C-alpha cells in the first residue's frame, strides 16, 4: 500500500472529507438491511485511512446508486467504493467467485456463456442456435483476449496469491 485511501480518493476527485456523517447513505441502502453493509462507516474509515481495503463490506454493495443520488454533500459514494475495490484487487484481493467470472470472460468473451439448454431454447424460438455475439464469431474472441492482455487484465486475474 503506497498511497493512503483518503489521498487516493481525493486525488480522484471524491470529496470524502466533506462527509458530515449524516447517515442518509446508510438509511437508504437496500443491502445494509440484510448484509450489514454500513456505507457511512466505509466513508468514515476511508477518511481516517483505516484498513478499508480489507473491509468485506466493500463487496456487499450492489451498486444501486441510491446513496450517491441522495448524498446531501454530493459525494460520489458508489464510484468511490468502486475505486476502493479496484485498489483492493490491484493489491491482490479478489473474492473467488469474482475471479471465476473474470476468467470466464477471458476464455469465452461472456460472463454468462451459452449452454446446451439455451441452444435448444433458441432453436425452439426460431433463433439461430448461436447468437450473433462472439459465440458466432471466434475471431472476435481472439480480439478480446488480445485486448485484455494488452490492458494487463489477464495477468491481474491470473494472480492467485500475489505476494
Amino acid at each position, binding site marked *: 500500500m503506497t498511497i493512503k485511501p483518503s489521498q487516493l480518493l481525493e486525488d480522484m476527485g471524491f470529496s470524502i472529507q466533506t462527509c458530515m456523517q449524516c447517515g442518509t447513505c446508510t438509511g437508504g441502502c*437496500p*443491502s445494509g*438491511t*440484510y*448484509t450489514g453493509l454500513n456505507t457511512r462507516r466505509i466513508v468514515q474509515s476511508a477518511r481516517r485511512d483505516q484498513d478499508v481495503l480489507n473491509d468485506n463490506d466493500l*463487496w*456487499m*454493495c*450492489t*451498486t*444501486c*446508486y*441510491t446513496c*450517491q*443520488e441522495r448524498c446531501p454533500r454530493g459525494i*460520489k459514494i458508489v464510484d468511490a*467504493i*468502486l475505486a476502493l*475495490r*479496484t485498489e483492493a*484487487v*490491484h493489491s491482490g484481493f*479478489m473474492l473467488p*467467485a*469474482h475471479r471465476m*467470472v*473474470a476468467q470466464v*470472460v477471458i476464455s469465452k*468473451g*461472456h*460472463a*454468462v*456463456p*451459452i*449452454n446446451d439448454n*439455451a441452444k435448444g*431454447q*433458441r432453436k*425452439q*424460438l426460431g*433463433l439461430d442456435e448461436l*447468437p*450473433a*455475439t*462472439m*459465440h*458466432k464469431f471466434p*475471431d*472476435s*474472441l481472439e*480480439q*478480446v483476449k*488480445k*485486448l*485484455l492482455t*494488452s*490492458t*494487463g*487484465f489477464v495477468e*491481474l486475474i491470473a494472480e492467485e496469491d500475489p505476494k
Partner: protein
Amino acid sequence: MNSVSIFLGCIVPNRYPGIEKATKLVLDELGVDWADLEGASCCPAPGVFRSFDKSSWLALASRNIALSEAMERDVLTVCNGCYGSLSDANHEMKHDPKLAKETNKHLEGIDMAFKGTSDVRHIVEFLSKEIGIDGIKDNVKLPLDLKVAVHYGCHLIKPSKERELGSVEKPSFFDELVEATGATSIDYADKMACCGAGGGVRSALLDKSLDMAEHKFKHITEAGADLIVNACPFCHLQLDFGQIEVKKKNGIEYNIPVLHYTQLLALALGFSQEDIGLDMNFIKAGNILEGKV
C-alpha cells in the same frame, strides 16, 4: 441516428432467449431499423469488471461501441447492466481525451478505434422517446388487463447525471410505457429498491442477495400484482429464478410471473406466449395470463 444495432449482452441470448425474440418482434412491428451487433462481447458487467480494473472495463466496452460505430448505428441495449456499462463508458470516452487516448492505444492493437460517433440507448428509454406512448398505443392489438408491478432496476436511471430521464426517486416513463399496453402499473412499497443482484453480490453472496429479492417479492405480493415487469435480464433472472432459490432456502413460494418489457409489449402487439418463450421462465405465466390477454 435512429437506426440501431442490438447489443444482446450475455444473459438475454444465453439464458433468456425469449427476450431476444420478443425484442426483435417488437422492433419489427414498430418499424425500427435494427441489425445484430455482430461479434460483441460481454459489456463488460459494470459492478464487477469496472471495479476490478477500469482500463480493461473501458477497453472492452469501447470495442463494443466501436463495432456499432463501424455500422453507423446507435447501440441498443436491452439490459440495465449493459446500458450502465456502455453508456457510462461512451460518456467517459467522449469527454475525457486522456482516457480516450489510453484506451485507443489498446484498441489499436486489434486494429480498432473508438471515434465517439454513436450513442448508447436502452430499449425502454428508446421506445419512450422515439416511439412514444401514443405510438405504442396505436400499435396495441390486444390491450392487457393486468396489474403490473414495474421494476425499473437501478442502472436504467442511475447514476442520473448523464441519463436525463427525470426523477430517480419517483420516475414515471417506464410505468407509462407499461400502461400503454392497457395494463395498470400498481404501486408497492420500496418499488425503487434494488433486486439485489448487482455489483457482484449475487455471484459472491447469493444468500444475502436473495434476501433483497425476497424483500421485493413480499411487497409485490402484498400489493396484489399479477406479474412483475422489468427492463433488465439480470433483474429478470434474479426475480424469476430467484423465486426458485428463495423457495429452496425457506420454503416460501411466491409464484409471481416475471416478464421483460419487450415480452409484455409483444403480447399486447398480438404475439403468443410461445412466440416469446414465456414458458421458458422458471415461474410459469400461463394461468395468470389466461383470459387477460
